[in-house]
């Protein structure tokens, strides 16, 4: 190698250059990527925000205030974002009366409105499956359900309807596989997601046996006028692109004692909700007096969503 050649060389070697390139790109990328990916411009506080479980009270309050300001400005409404904690002595359970559900999908759209789900790309946390009646009564698998029914009137003759959403399993496979600890089970039994911590790897979606989790493939959009300004950080606050979301049992409502939105929307009263630890609750009554079943019982996920036959 001549001296000339040596003088023309760059000081880094091939492998070292490659390595450095990656590092520099990575560092410079973080800010740019954060800006590009979230579609929101570089928000350093958001970029460096801690996991919900690790933030101090002050940090958490700062996050809530920042989000309130941001969303109020963005949607032109007086937005409140809370991080209300669980109630003591409460574990939530949900009941669904299969003999009553008529498949009208009012719950689906009430949920969409209450929880600020994206209209385009469309996200719906609840999916109503239509089955042949005999199938359900003699043993069925979820894969037999059809969510795309579109009749003039429901219930269609000979059909049975099963709405499916997050089952808030006691032994949830999703919380076990999340690599960053972005999803966990709260003391009151709600399986929650920290939307500011999720990296969007979608391992939880592969793990969920109920197809309950939905991904923000694109930028979610909700018309400003339709935004529900009463938000919970782990519930219905607007999500960003690239994170997983799902039913949160209307955490922003139930932790203040309210019924979930889907329950109130149901015209036939097929949905039941309450505290599994309270022996006088509606949910306990139906568990003790009705024939109940859970989906995919053989997987031993122990869902807290109980389907039952209201007719004696």
């Amino acid at each position, binding site marked *: 190698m001549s001296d000339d050649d040596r003088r023309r060389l760059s000081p880094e070697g091939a492998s070292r250059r490659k390595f450095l390139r990656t590092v520099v790109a990575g560092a410079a990328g973080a800010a740019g990527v954060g800006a590009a990916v979230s579609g929101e411009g570089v928000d350093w506080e958001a970029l460096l925000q801690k996991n919900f479980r690790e933030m101090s009270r002050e940090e958490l309050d700062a996050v809530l205030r920042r989000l309130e300001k941001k969303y109020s400005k963005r949607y032109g409404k007086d937005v409140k974002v809370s991080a209300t904690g*669980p109630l003591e002595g409460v574990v939530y359970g949900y009941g669904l009366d299969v003999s009553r559900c008529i498949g009208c*999908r009012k719950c689906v759209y009430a949920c969409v409105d209450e929880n600020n789900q994206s209209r385009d790309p469309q996200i719906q946390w609840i999916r109503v499956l239509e089955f042949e009646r005999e199938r359900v009564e003699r043993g069925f698998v979820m894969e037999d*359900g059809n969510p795309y029914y579109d009749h003039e009137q429901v219930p269609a003759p000979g059909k049975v309807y099963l709405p499916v959403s997050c089952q808030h399993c006691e032994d*949830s496979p999703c919380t076990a596989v999340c690599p960053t600890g972005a999803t*966990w089970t709260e003391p009151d039994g709600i399986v929650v997601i920290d939307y500011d911590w999720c990296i969007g790897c979608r391992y939880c979606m592969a793990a969920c046996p109920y197809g309950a989790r939905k991904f923000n493939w694109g930028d979610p959009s909700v018309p400003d006028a339709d935004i529900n300004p009463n938000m919970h950080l782990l519930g219905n606050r607007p999500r960003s692109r690239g994170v997983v979301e799902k039913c949160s049992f209307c955490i922003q409502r139930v932790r203040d*004692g309210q019924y979930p939105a889907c329950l109130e929307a149901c015209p036939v009263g097929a949905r039941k909700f309450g505290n599994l630890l309270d022996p006088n609750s509606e949910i306990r009554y139906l568990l003790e007096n009705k024939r109940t079943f859970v989906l995919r019982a053989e997987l031993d996920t122990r869902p807290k969503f109980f389907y039952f036959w209201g007719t004696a």
Partner: protein
Amino acid sequence: MTPNDEGISGRVQALTYTVIAAAFALVLVLFSVECPHSRRESRSDYARRTLPPEPAPVLRPSPPLSDTVFPCIDCHDVSEAVDQTRRVLTDDHETLTLAHGDLWCLSCHSPAHRDQLQLADGTLVEMTESWKLCTQCHGKKLADWRAGVHGKRTGFWWGPKEYRACVECHNPHAPPFKPLKPLPPPMRPGRIGAPMSAQAATTSGTLEGAESE
């Protein structure tokens, strides 16, 4: 660049086993270290919250009957004798569908007190308490309805809540729920697209039936 031709010396062997054992030990140590939070653990600083004792559920007052049908005495003259034979009405109320098991009008409507209903034994019941009639036959439903498992409730699962009288959902003359038009089905995943991507046409169906495009 070929390895040392003298073979693997005893020293190297010892070192090798040490390194592999160390790696193994490291894995064991890592395995026994819990992540700072297990998947069933949340914040440690949640305040202990309870809600105040809840009031009893309230039976929501039924919407008033329209003045075209109530009060009944506007048309029915109680001074006249009432024909109590079971029949299909032809002069008035003929548009009313009556399909409630074996019942006919005077099973529930009191012939002598037209603005009131009657139980099977003749006891009079106000229109606002019509649910008392239903529970004569639908006893199990009464228990479920009181417990909140039958029928719609709104409000608070722990707090003020309202339940509804039977007639709010069930027309007593033809009780089965009328079918409704369902809200739209979800979009097929293949239709959810981005404006600028080169999307291949993807269709999807379910096991029960392929999509018809």
